[in-house]
């Protein structure tokens, strides 16, 4: 017999599929089988219909398309035989769903079967209806279902009750027809009917306020009595789950009582006694018993206040927390999370137990417990809780440390009663799990230290000590290096010693040791090494005696493959070597970091705030923040500085140079975009550079450009690490000549472009902004072709969830031509953590007459929901 004909039995097909060794083999078998089934369907042979659908159901489960069998299901349902009907309805439920139009055709068969004399056929029809009922079917068939609620056979009644739930969910208007029949079901003695009746009433209350009112008035007392009977009923083996009688009925009843009691004091009063009885009498050594207790607790927390009951409920949860079963602890934590809004005090009493759960061996329980602890922290308990959590940090699993440190840092930042406590706790966290600390957290610590002028000495000494024991924690090293650079003198002289401190003896060379260790450690990353270099420069001024040694360390990085380090070391070397006169002014202590700005930046994770704060800080005398300009620019800047300020001294000189900072971004852009220009001589460069300085519009607009483009790769506070860079610019100013850097300059000087070649620079625009999505456009034009514009669109997700399947579409009027390049990705990370970029190339045939205009549509998936946003962009800069 041909193994793939319609004569193959279901069992043989399953065997053939199971015998497949690879997925490809399986696909081939299924393909052949499907072909055979199709052929058989075309022959319209009623004998094989049953078997074909049975096979298709199996194939469907394996994930292959089976839509071609849908009509066969209808034919089977129309058949008079029970087995045909049965498989037809099974197929109907699996292969079809309510969106399919085939369903229209099935309504009539369903209606007939609902009125069938055979109760099993009625059952089949009810079951199918309960699974696939659409709104139209619900309207058509509701009277049948209503009638079946009073059917003689209890099995049909319970199916009809559940079917009614589906109907009222699809068409809530139909609810009123079911109120009275449902109320009648509550008086049922048959267990199955009662449980489904209770379920129907619960769902009726959800969709219809009248139903809720009706049941509350008429049925509350009856339900309380029923529950009392169930609680006191003798052991019934058929509904026994692990020794507890009928937990499901318990749970359904208690749940319906919750719906009735919520927001109604009278109804709540009626059920208080029985709830107390359930809460105290139910055995809690079995899962089923705990399920009842859990439901009971939720009901007590939801109905109108009765102080005594709530305490009882929360105490049950407290008992759950010390249960040995993971599941019980898990649900208890879930419930406490809800209870915390109702009665924080009662939950606080179980703080110690919850804290124990943070140390649980089950990761999901740990996570819940940590969240709960986080909610429980307040000003009065922050100290002991933080102490416990930090102690646990020492012994916790590696994979849990990330979560734990994030939460601890957040608790410390939110509730710290005083700065010294904040600094102490953060130091503990950094020493314990510094590698898990997020950038914001250690940046915040630096800001706090900088603001606490009386604690500078204390902090730097504490960090020095911490470094001796925990030098492997990257973020601790960074903060220590930064503080030693800033407050190194306070370290060695025991300045501003607090009463609680023991004085320590540290020499300048010891302090340099720390920085040297951190710069030479092979695990240190670029940020740490750059920060160390700056600290070294600062120390060279603080400890003149170590100056030579520091220079040696700095020089070692002159050959670094990382451009940033190479550049810094060359610059700093020349500062130490040649510019003693300005050094002390250059490396003065940082001005106090602005806490408000920092908090603002952190609060709005949206990058929109960054440009303003960045450009504001550009005006600070010492350049608190500097846009991360490309090294090329710095080098170019070197030659330009030769002329304007060749011999000014100290501060004044510095001012000039910092004035020049504004000019940098503009340079940067021109410098980067043009790389193939003809070689030019030094003076030409100078002239070009100077000419840029005289066109203020251009440079100011490009400052915004460069700032916005820098947001992506540098975290807002990365500028902390860059702090000393603006002074470093000055160092290069006078080092032209026999400096090793000249080689570098020589290498780069052929590259500078002619700024005018670049055409005018257009400001970026925000093309679209909503609470969840932001789109910016950056414009550039290829020289010599004014009609063409390249738009770099950047999409940023401002919401808390990631977007998937992100698609951007745009349309333009006829005088424009638009070409969209592929986007960089179709997944957009949440909270502005990254972006998608896409290039749009526009050709404007009416250049100079009409400006650009564009309609756009953005489609993406958010929490599995399709979102579509549309808009028109009219704010393009003129002249594009």
């Amino acid at each position, binding site marked *: 017999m041909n193994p793939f004909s319609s004569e193959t039995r279901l069992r043989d097909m399953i065997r053939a599929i199971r015998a497949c060794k690879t997925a490809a083999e399986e696909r081939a078998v299924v393909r052949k089988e499907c072909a055979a089934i199709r052929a058989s369907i075309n022959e319209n042979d009623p004998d094989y219909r049953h078997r074909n659908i049975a096979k298709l*159901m199996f194939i469907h489960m394996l994930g292959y398309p089976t839509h071609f069998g849908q009509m066969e299901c209808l034919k089977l349902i129309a058949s008079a035989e029970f087995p045909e009907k049965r498989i037809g309805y099974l197929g109907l439920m699996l292969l079809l769903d309510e969106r399919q139009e085939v369903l229209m055709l099935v309504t009539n068969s369903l209606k007939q079967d609902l009125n069938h004399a055979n109760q099993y056929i009625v059952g089949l029809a009810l079951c199918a209806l309960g699974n696939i009922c659409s709104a139209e079917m619900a309207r058509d068939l509701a009277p049948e279902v209503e009638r079946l609620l009073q059917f003689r056979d209890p099995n049909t009644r319970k199916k009809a009750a559940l079917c009614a739930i589906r109907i009222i969910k699809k068409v809530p208007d139909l609810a009123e027809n079911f109120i009275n029949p449902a109320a009648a079901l509550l008086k049922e003695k048959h267990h199955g009917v009662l449980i489904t009746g209770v379920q129907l009433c619960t769902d009726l209350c959800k969709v219809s306020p009248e139903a809720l009112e009706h049941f509350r008035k008429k049925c509350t007392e009856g339900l309380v009595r029923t529950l009392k009977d169930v609680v006191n009923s003798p052991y019934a083996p058929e509904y026994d789950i692990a020794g507890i009688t009928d937990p499901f009925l318990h749970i359904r009843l208690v749940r319906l009582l919750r719906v009735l009691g919520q927001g109604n004091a009278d109804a709540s009063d009626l059920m208080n006694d029985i709830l107390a009885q359930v809460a105290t009498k139910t055995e809690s050594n079995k899962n089923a018993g705990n399920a009842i207790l859990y439901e009971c607790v939720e009901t007590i927390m939801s109905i109108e206040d009765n102080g005594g009951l709530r305490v009882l409920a929360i105490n049950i949860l407290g008992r759950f927390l010390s249960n040995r079963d993971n599941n019980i602890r898990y649900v208890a934590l879930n419930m406490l999370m809800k209870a915390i809004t109702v009665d924080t005090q009662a939950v606080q009493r179980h703080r110690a137990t919850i804290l124990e759960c943070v140390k649980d061996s089950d990761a999901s329980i740990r996570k819940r417990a940590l969240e709960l602890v986080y909610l429980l922290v307040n000003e009065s308990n922050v100290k002991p809780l933080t102490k416990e959590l930090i102690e646990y940090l020492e012994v916790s699993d590696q994979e849990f440390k990330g979560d734990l440190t994030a939460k601890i840092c957040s608790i410390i930042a939110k509730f710290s009663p005083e700065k010294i406590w904040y600094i102490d706790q953060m130091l503990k966290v950094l020493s314990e799990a510094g590698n898990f600390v997020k950038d914001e957290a250690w940046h915040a610590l630096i800001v706090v230290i900088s603001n606490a002028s009386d604690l500078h000495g204390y902090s730097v000494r504490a960090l020095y000590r911490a470094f001796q024991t925990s030098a492997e924690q990257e973020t601790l090293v960074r903060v220590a290096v930064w503080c030693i650079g800033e407050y190194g003198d306070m370290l060695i002289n025991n300045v501003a010693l607090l009463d609680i401190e023991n004085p320590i003896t540290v020499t300048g060379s010891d302090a340099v040791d720390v920085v040297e260790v951190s710069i030479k450690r092979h695990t240190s990353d670029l940020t740490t090494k750059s920060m160390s270099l700056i600290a070294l420069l600062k120390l060279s001024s603080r400890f003149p005696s170590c100056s030579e040694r520091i220079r040696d360390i700095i020089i070692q990085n002159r050959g670094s493959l990382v451009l940033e380090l190479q550049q810094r070391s060359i610059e700093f070397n020349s500062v130490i070597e040649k510019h003693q006169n300005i050094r002390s002014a250059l490396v003065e202590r940082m001005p106090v970091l602005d806490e408000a700005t920092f908090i603002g930046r952190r609060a709005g994770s949206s990058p929109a705030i960054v440009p303003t704060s960045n450009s504001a800080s550009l005006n600070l005398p010492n350049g608190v923040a500097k846009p991360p300009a490309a090294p090329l620019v710095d080098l170019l800047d070197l030659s330009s500085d030769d002329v304007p300020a060749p011999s000014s001294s100290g501060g004044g000189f510095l001012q000039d140079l910092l004035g020049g900072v504004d000019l940098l971004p503009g340079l940067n852009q021109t410098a980067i975009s043009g790389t193939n220009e003809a070689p030019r001589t030094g003076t030409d460069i100078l002239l070009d550079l100077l000419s840029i300085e005289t066109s203020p519009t251009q440079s100011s607009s490009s400052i915004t450009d460069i700032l916005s483009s820098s947001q992506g790769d540098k975290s807002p506070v990365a500028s902390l690490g860059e702090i000393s860079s603006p002074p470093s610019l000055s160092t290069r100013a006078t080092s032209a000549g026999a400096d090793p850097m000249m080689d570098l300059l020589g290498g780069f000087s052929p590259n500078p472009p002619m700024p005018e070649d670049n055409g005018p620079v257009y400001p970026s625009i925000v093309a679209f902004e909503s609470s969840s999505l932001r789109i910016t456009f950056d414009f550039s034009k290829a020289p010599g072709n004014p009609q063409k514009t390249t738009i770099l669109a950047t999409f940023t997700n401002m919401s808390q969830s990631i977007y998937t399947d992100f698609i951007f579409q745009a349309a333009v009027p006829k005088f424009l031509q638009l070409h969209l390049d592929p986007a960089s990705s179709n997944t957009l990370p949440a909270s502005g953590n990254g972006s998608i970029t896409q290039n749009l190339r526009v050709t404007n045939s009416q250049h100079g007459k009409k400006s650009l205009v564009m309609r756009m549509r953005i489609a993406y998936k958010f929490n599995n929901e399709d979102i579509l946003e549309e808009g028109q962009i009219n704010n393009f800069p003129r002249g594009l």
Partner: protein
Amino acid sequence: MIRAVMVMNTQGKPRLAKFYDSQPVDKQQELIRSVFGVLCSRAENVSNFVEADSIFGPDSRIVYKHFATLYFVLVFDSSENELAMLDLIQVLVETLDKCFKNVCELDLVFNYSKIHTILDEIFFGGQVLETSSAEVMKAVEEISKLETASNSITLVPKSVSGWRGR
């Protein structure tokens, strides 16, 4: 409401899947795969509950039980009691056990449509229909009787012992 019932083996092959909120076919396979991805990475001694918001959308949980080579999984929303769902899996497995006398994975594979009949007697359109395995057995036996009585093709073989060895 219960959103889905799934049974899959420890290799991730679906053995039974029924979705009560209609899902397109390829989506169903994707959901089964993601659920398996979550389950197979869970340790033995942890709780049986998983937050499934990332797989099934907001307000969805998974409860699962691991028996021999099979995972039994229920997906449901906050209107169901988690611990009760755990007991419900127990009811399902006990019923299967009574039907097949020491149920094993192969019983599920070869008695596909009977399993669905059992399932439909316990779960009904996302609600719990019956929690007593004796009642479920009674209903299933009645249906089997009707099947054989009508002299038609028998889909449910009486014995599966001959196929145990692959």
